[in-house]
């Protein structure tokens, strides 16, 4: 290192350090992670901004109950003052941002005196349980089916799984949910005179979970199965798999260490969007099965124009999805050594 006269400018030293760090992979990795985290900020900000704007562009005021009586001017004025709606828009936005950073999403319009945060916290365990179960189901089942179909290409197993996947991928959550309820609750109830059926509403840590979790996971399973199959088929044809066989490796080693290790890489990248799907899917599934989670609260908030609730939930969902995508991107860098970090 050359001797530098006097003190170097701060920025120059930082640049030098960064360049040096980016030379090593662990250094570059840290930089990458930091950059990705910083990238989340404008994204979330944008989401908050857009949602906020929409809320405030809405015609009418939040106190117009559909079909209800008009509240008196005085009452409206007081309500506006109480919820800070009488201040200029920009100020409201700034205030909101500030509060969000402190995890304060304001008071709900629907439920007197309850904060949005508390309502979210209330619904969180339900949504989280179902979401986690669904996720735990999706990955092994989806990947398993895809690999199975690929290894048994063009046999009945392949056609059956892919046929199922095609259909499952096309039927929306609520359609699947409703149909499942009809078959497993209504029909079964009638057929067995009420002795055996699956419960279709409310939450409990028993067979109440079966239908919601399956409904939520069906589409991602189908999607991942198809992707895994395509990726595996592609990988099997690669030259390096042939090399692996030529080395005399056992079938298990070839399938796991050579085929799957490569084939699953694109599947990992899809986990981020799949997670996002679980989040939005929970809205529908909780409505169908009457589960008191965040998703259902969201729908109720929309029905009753509970703006803070809508805003808060949207922000939460977006942050969660952004974090999930971040984790997936970082994981991808670990999995695929060919990825360039600079």
């Amino acid at each position, binding site marked *: 290192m050359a001797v530098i006269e006097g003190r170097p400018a701060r920025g120059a030293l930082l640049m030098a350090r960064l360049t040096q760090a980016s030379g090593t992979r662990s250094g570059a990795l840290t930089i990458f992670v930091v950059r990705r985290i910083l990238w989340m900020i404008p994204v979330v900000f944008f989401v908050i901004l857009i949602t906020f704007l929409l809320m405030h562009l809405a015609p009418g005021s939040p106190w117009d109950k559909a079909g209800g009586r008009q509240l008196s001017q005085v009452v409206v004025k007081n309500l506006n003052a109480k919820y800070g709606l009488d201040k200029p828009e920009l100020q409201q936005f700034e205030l909101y941002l500030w509060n969000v950073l402190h995890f304060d999403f304001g008071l709900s319009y629907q439920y007197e005196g309850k904060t949005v945060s508390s309502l979210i916290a209330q619904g969180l365990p339900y949504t989280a349980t179902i979401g986690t179960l669904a996720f735990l189901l999706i990955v092994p089942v989806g990947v398993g089916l895809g690999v199975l179909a690929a290894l048994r290409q063009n046999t009945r197993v392949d056609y059956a799984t892919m046929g199922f996947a095609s259909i499952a991928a096309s039927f929306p959550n609520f359609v699947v949910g409703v149909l499942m309820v009809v078959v497993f609750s209504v029909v079964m109830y009638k057929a067995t005179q009420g002795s055996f059926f699956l419960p279709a509403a409310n939450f409990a840590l028993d067979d109440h979970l079966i239908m919601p979790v399956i409904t939520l996971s069906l589409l991602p399973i189908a999607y991942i199965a198809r992707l895994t199959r395509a990726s595996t088929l592609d990988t099997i044809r690669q030259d390096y798999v042939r090399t692996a066989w030529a080395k*005399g490796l056992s079938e298990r080693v070839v399938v796991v260490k050579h085929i799957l290790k490569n084939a699953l890489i694109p599947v990992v990248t899809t986990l981020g969007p799949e997670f996002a799907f679980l989040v939005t899917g929970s809205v529908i599934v909780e409505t169908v099965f009457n589960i008191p989670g965040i998703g259902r609260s969201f729908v109720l908030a929309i029905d009753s124009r509970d703006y803070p609730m809508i805003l808060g939930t949207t922000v939460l969902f977006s942050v969660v999805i952004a974090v999930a995508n971040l984790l997936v991107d970082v994981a991808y860098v670990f999995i695929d050594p060919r990825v360039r970090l600079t």
Partner: protein
Amino acid sequence: MAAALLQVEDLHTQFYTSRGVVRAVDGVNFQIDAGETLGVVGESGCGKTMTALSILRLVPDPGKIVSGKILFRGKDVTKMDDDEIRDFRGNDVAMIFQDPMTSLNPVTKIGRQIEEAMTAHDRFTEHAAHDRVIELLTRVRVPAAASRVKDYPHQFSGGMRQRAMIAMGLSNEPALLIADEPTTALDVTVQAQIIQLMKQLNRELGTAMMLITHNMALVASLCQRIVVMYAGRVVEEGPVEQIFSNPQHPYTWSLLRSVPRVDEARKERLVSIRGLPPDLSNSPPGCKFHPRCPFVVDRCKQEEPELSGVGVNQVARCWVLMRNVKAADIEAAKQSSLSREAVENLKAPALGSSDKAGTIAGS
């Protein structure tokens, strides 16, 4: 006389496609002795790679070995069960492939990939394998082998990747190494290095080698005997010097003519073999080469010749044979397929004189 290391007897490998049955290997016979280097040459699609893959029973779907024997030290490879074949691959016979970039697992470290070849056959412990990898890489002249083992294939240059593949192939000290176009995907300068390396290894280790290539120069450097294949069949076979100086099959002759040679006067024109290789699901009757042969006679179009002896240890599959072709015909064939007039027109016209306006096409 000791039995051959590898003996391929009447091998037939076919592919069942929607277009019909493709006879990729159509009755091939040859043998390789211990320590010998055999060159297998021919155009793309003539069946040389499929023959090699058949030896290791790696023929991809929808192909399969239909009949014939592949005897390795007397044991028939086509009849081995799963355990035996796994033991055989990478251990008794190893194969290295054409494109080292795609032939190496991109997400596994090179060192691991080579170790894997060794530990799979229970000949080395993990620890011993790890040490041996460094030794092997050094032997194939990969610099700084000890740190290079932790690299991924994309971090190696093309030449180094091929060296790593060679190291991988030799790691279990196979009796036979099959090299499928080992230098085709490399730069010319790197090619020379690899050839040098292979020569040296062959001297040091005494490994028999089956070198598959369409590069006659490579054959000249490395091989003792050569097998020429066309349309899934052997059309000529013999010692390298003999074949090079006195090829009997017109196809061999054409192949040699299409390669520039240092020992010939510069004015000899290079001849490319006109036409394309035949469709192996629908090949011509009679001799498979007859549509492209410069010396074809009527019999060639009707009856397919058998392999017949044409010299010491040399056989060829031809009714005519080069030694029976008149010198005048040979000279005529040496001209390219363009007519004399067309050749004249290829020369740049002198500025101003354009009375010789002709077209290039036409023969």
